[in-house]
């Protein structure tokens, strides 16, 4: 595969994934994940520039494996999951997809930007979350699976009632 083809394949994967999440097809989304998935969204604090970007090594908004993601999705299926009933209407914009070339491993290191607009209830004003994702996509039986995701949010204080959506 050429670099262009690889980028196209990875981009299609991310677009397809975003569509599944925006359409609330969480079961199908779960099938895009490797059973070894590591999914992290660290807490971020504002730091002076000499102290780095402020992503925590110990505090997370999400720090998931397959089992915990499965349980989250199981809860979302309940009509009593008030945070998502009525559901948040999301629009994920995935862009700036960059794929790192590697000869050592079959996994593809994919970086992308994410902007998620969240609309709830009868509020005309969406909440917006943006960040960078650093993913590892693994070819498995002719398909790509997400086996690692690190979401680096731009915000430190979350400007939403809850993080009831996936990123």
């Amino acid at each position, binding site marked *: 595969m050429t670099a262009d083809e690889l980028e196209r394949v990875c981009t299609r994967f991310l677009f397809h994934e975003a569509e599944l999440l925006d359409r609330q097809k969480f079961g199908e989304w779960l099938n895009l994940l490797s059973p070894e998935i590591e999914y992290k969204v660290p807490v971020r604090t504002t730091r002076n520039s000499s102290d780095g970007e402020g992503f925590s090594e110990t*505090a997370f908004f999400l720090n998931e494996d397959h089992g915990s993601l499965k349980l989250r999705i199981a809860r979302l299926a309940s009509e009593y999951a008030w945070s998502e009933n009525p559901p948040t209407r999301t629009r994920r914009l995935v862009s700036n997809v960059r794929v790192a070339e590697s000869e050592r491993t079959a996994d593809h290191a994919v970086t992308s930007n994410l902007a998620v607009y969240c609309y709830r209830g009868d509020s005309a004003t969406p909440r917006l979350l943006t960040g960078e994702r650093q993913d590892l996509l693994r070819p498995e039986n002719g398909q790509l699976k997400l086996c690692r995701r690190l979401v680096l949010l731009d915000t430190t204080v979350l400007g939403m009632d809850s993080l009831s959506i996936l990123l």
Partner: protein
Amino acid sequence: MKTGRRSPHLARGGDDGQRVLAGVKRDLEKGLIPARVFGDRGLYELELRRIFARSWLFIGHESELPNRGDFAMRYMGEDPFIFVRDAEGVIRVLFNACRHRGTQICRAEKGNAAQFTCPYHGWTYRNDGRLNGVPAKHLGYRKLDLAKWGLFSAAQVASYAGLVFATLDPGAIPLADYLGKYRWYLDIQLKLTAGGMEVLGEPHRWLVDANWKQGAENFCGDSSHTQMTHRSALNVGLIGASAAGAPGAAYGLQVNECDGHAISIRQQPRGQSVFWEYPEEVTRLFSAERLSDAQFDLARRAMAHVGTVFPNFSFLHVGLTDSLDRPPGAYLSIRVWQPRGPGRTEIWNWILAPKEAPLEYKRRAYRLGMSSFSPSGSFEQDDVAIWPGIARTASSLFAEMNDVKFNYQMGFGENFDVAPLPNWPGPGVAIPSNAGEGGLRGFHWTWYRQMTAGNR
């Protein structure tokens, strides 16, 4: 359709804090609370002055500042402070404003600094707040006495079992007296090991469009909301049914009238050993050395302890799982419901585990806390989905016009016939039922007393 009578003061409009306050006592005596308590801006401004400027407020945990010079940005009410361990090791809470012309001198949420330098004109302070230097002193500040121009400090700063509190009131009673008899319950959460509890990472911070008292009152003993609000979490089996509890006398009790603070407890009968479901690798570290037999017994039988230290510090000590292929484990969550306006709260949430616990367990404890009580928490998500609706009601013109009261009568007066436990070993009054809102009524009584305690 009930539309209510036209209020005589309708023409006056909102922001009528004193008037709202005047009716509260009469309402509380009937188990009612005016809706506007949760939404009136004038009342909120009074709260900032009469509650937040006078009480002991939680700032942070000692374990967040392990090294000299470590600092974090924190708030008292809505005011910015620096939480710092100075060069001598003393923990300080310093007003985050340059004494020159008011610039915010600490602009990072966290870091380590031997001194703070103002970006505007370069006034420099040691990390204990003392003014170290000003620019061109010999030219423009010849007579300036540096000793008089150090950073302001909170009036009092004190620690209890690792919890650092501060107050803006120089006349406030000492922290130990403010916590009073309630320390008996704090000790159970915090003193099972010699090293106590340790914070496991930076706090979650997030904004919820609800009044700060929603969270604070809920953690005083809103036992009956669990079955409905958190039904989706209960139904997927991530917490034992006994720990979650249903209204009734079986295993749940609420403790009120404890120096203004409250706790609710779900526990197993005597003889069972649970310790909130910490695994053996952690419970083997627990000892009764720093506790009485009665306290240790409560820890042993504990499934869930949930409480609020007035006004806005709460905790939750509980066992559950984050995945059906893993056994449950326990963690301690502590949080601040920080006021950001009558209809807005910033929630700060820390997750803790025993200091001596194995590192691998601490990682697990963190994930358990995050999975249940945090912005993405399977329980927390549903609480915060509901509370903003109350804020809308509380700030509505309808509520103002019709003097709408909220019903806090569960377990009140004739609605209830469960007597307090006669042989309860701890302080306060222990009611062996979850079918009541006594803890919430107690919270609002404490609030009312503080709001009307003389004019200073």
